């Protein structure tokens, strides 16, 4: 996992719960905690941090990830403004992930393993997002999608039609835009 994700998590936690909460989280998770955006760190550390947070907040890890994704979006927008420029809706922004955002991420972080999303539309006009990653962080993606909707001031509904956490081989998120 790239250090930038840990940095974003730190910022989200600190913004929501104060500096000490992050220190507590690091120490409770038993991780080193010195993260730089340019570094790579074991996936197990993010899993541990999310797990501890879930325990402390009495939430599911999935909910923590989803919260984190949503909270991280404004920070990403601040940090990587060019990715958001030129988009008038969350839908086009989401669709640009594979072709524009991920290549750009790879430019910055050599060797970054970005997940590939498969996009389609179902008969109801919902955007279907297929996701497959050994990290199984579909709820982080879920949170990012919600954060993107917030960014463009849109209301959406996200449904997990299939989930690797429940034994499916892929995750499929269906996103409906509410008018």
């Amino acid at each position, binding site marked *: 996992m790239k250090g930038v994700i840990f940095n974003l998590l730190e910022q989200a936690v600190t913004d929501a719960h104060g500096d000490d909460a992050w220190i507590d989280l690091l120490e409770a998770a038993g991780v080193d905690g010195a993260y*730089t*955006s*340019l570094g790579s760190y074991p996936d197990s550390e993010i899993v541990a941090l999310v797990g501890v947070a879930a325990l402390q907040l009495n939430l599911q890890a999935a909910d923590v990830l989803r919260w984190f994704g949503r909270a991280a979006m404004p920070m990403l927008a601040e940090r990587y403004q060019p990715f958001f420029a030129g988009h008038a809706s969350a839908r086009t922004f989401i669709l640009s992930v594979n072709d524009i955002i991920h290549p750009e991420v790879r430019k*910055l972080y050599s060797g970054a393993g970005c997940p590939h999303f498969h996009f389609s539309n179902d008969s109801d006009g919902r955007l279907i997002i297929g996701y497959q990653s050994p990290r199984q962080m579909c709820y982080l993606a879920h949170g990012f999608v919600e954060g993107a909707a917030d960014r463009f001031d849109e209301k959406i509904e996200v449904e997990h039609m299939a989930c690797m956490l429940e034994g499916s081989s892929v995750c499929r998120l269906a996103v409906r835009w509410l008018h």
Partner: protein
Amino acid sequence: MPPRGSLASLKSFTPPVSDDRDHRLARAERRVVRERAARMEAEAIAEQGLRRLYESQQRLLLLQRITDGANRTTEIEAALRIAVIEICRDMDWAFGNALLVGDQSSTVAGCDVWYAADPDALFPFVEASRHARFEAGIGLPGRVLADVRPHWIDNVTRDTNFPRLNMAAQCGLAAACAFPVMVGDEVAGVLEFFARRLIVPDDDLLGIMGQIGTQLGRVIERDRARRALIHDAHHDAMTRLPNRTLFMKRAESAFVRMTVDQQVNMAVIVVDLDGFKAVNDTLGHQAGDALLIDVASRMQACIAAAEEEARGSGACWRATLARVGGDEFNVLVDNFDDAAAVTRLADTIHRCFAAPSVLAGKQIRCQASIGIAFGNQSYGDVEQMLRDADLAMYQAKSHGRGQSVTFTEQLGTEVRRRTQIEHELRRAIAERQFVLHYQPIVSLNDPNSICGFEALIRWNHPMRGLLLPAEFIDIAEQSGLILFIGDWVLMEACAQASAWHWRTGGERLPFISINISPQQFLQPEFVDRVHAVLMESGITPATVRLEVTEGVAIMDAAQTSVILEKIRAWGVKTSLDDFGTGFSSLSYLQSLPFDALKIDRSFVAAMNGSNKSRGIVQAILDLARTMGMTVIAEGIETAAQEELLRLMGCDMGQGFRYGRAETNTHALAKIMVC
């Protein structure tokens, strides 16, 4: 007290010590915030550096791929294709198109080298671009050509100088950029790219595109050098026309097309200038070269005009004019429907010689002999066609200047016959198969008295028996063999006549009339040769009469006069043969020293019933008398002709009335009887 802010004050600074834990904690927290901010700034700087490094690495890799591609190929289009594809993929641009600058340097045109990630969606724009042509300054490529620098358009659909605006809008293209391909300081081509989103130029991109443009420019330079070499190898340096090599290449391809598809026609035309050698000899090689350049450009222009006109009427034949030898040109006509198109083209070529060429201030009128051979399935190769076209051309030449002849089987047969005869003539010379027969010439005042004989050649052909000159003299003249034959005749006739004189003990000295061919007469050593024959044979020179035709006299009157005078100086007589059949110009008759004049048999034959012919004969006789020339009438067959000519004042006669040409033995017998 030291000044404020100096190092001295810093050295003396002692930080306040506080035991206040809250204060220390606050300080520690501020430090953490600062350090986090510093870390984030450091990360941002590092990220920017990484991005730049990544991009420049990618662009170097792009340049390397394009350079490798350019080095692998000699074809400019292939190198451009590699560049367009690589750039589009690397930059994620929707469409790339290559254009090359035309020969005039004022236009740039698509060379059908393009790449589109999604060609279906871009079809209208691709179609509008792949062969598009732009004047300098017009459209995106035209701007690059005019300004010799890259150009960018943020939104082509709002650009006022973008002719493909509608198609671009239809395909959803927005931004565009174009870069020059440079050869030295010259724009040799343009690469243009289009994207659906904004293209932001930066120094790195401009730098890399500049380098790509230079690499591609090198391929163009190499390509130009290669083409120049190929062009030089395939073209005549003087006239700039295709040379024999290129002509044969094209002719062979056309021949293959013809043999594969019987609907496809081809023909070859051989054009040989008439009298070109004389221009070279009299005006010099420089003038000859200038003439060749002039006629080549005329033929080229008139063939191009004829092609254009034919295309206008729906025909689609093509013609390639080539210079294949000194003054010899070939034309390949390919893909015609109607053979008449080819003969019309030959007529057109003749017409383009109508106006004189002006060389060194002199007007030279040049003409050409043309031979045409139409391709057919019986030909084995183009060489055979060219041989036949050559034969036809020689046939045309024999008809006089400015003529065309189309090869036919009949002509082929005739030529083969002539070739066979020529071959046999060579053998006849080597094996001495010729004999001389002698026809008596009498005085009309005393027809029973033989004044002399005309030596007439016969060919004792091993298979065909005795052949008259009409069967072989033309061929001997055309093949140059007449020189050998004529020399033999001169020697043999003089030797025989000398023998007669010896046999008669010198009592009777009939003269011997010997025909001299024009070629023989004009040989530089002719005079010496005559002298040598006189010496060898021991004949009395006054009994030798050399007969030449009018044709010799008009070829070079001055030279003819010199030769005749030299010969006459030894006492040899000279006769003008066949008078009245050729040019019969009084002016040269006056200037040339002939002793005798022979009236052609055709006038004698026509005299019987025609006052006009009689009038002509009388005029000739009067003229000859005035000039002090003896007159001999040929072809006298009847007593009436003899009587008429005698009364008109003709000196001598020759014809069946006095005897046919007979062997030496018979001639000698006649002399002895006289």
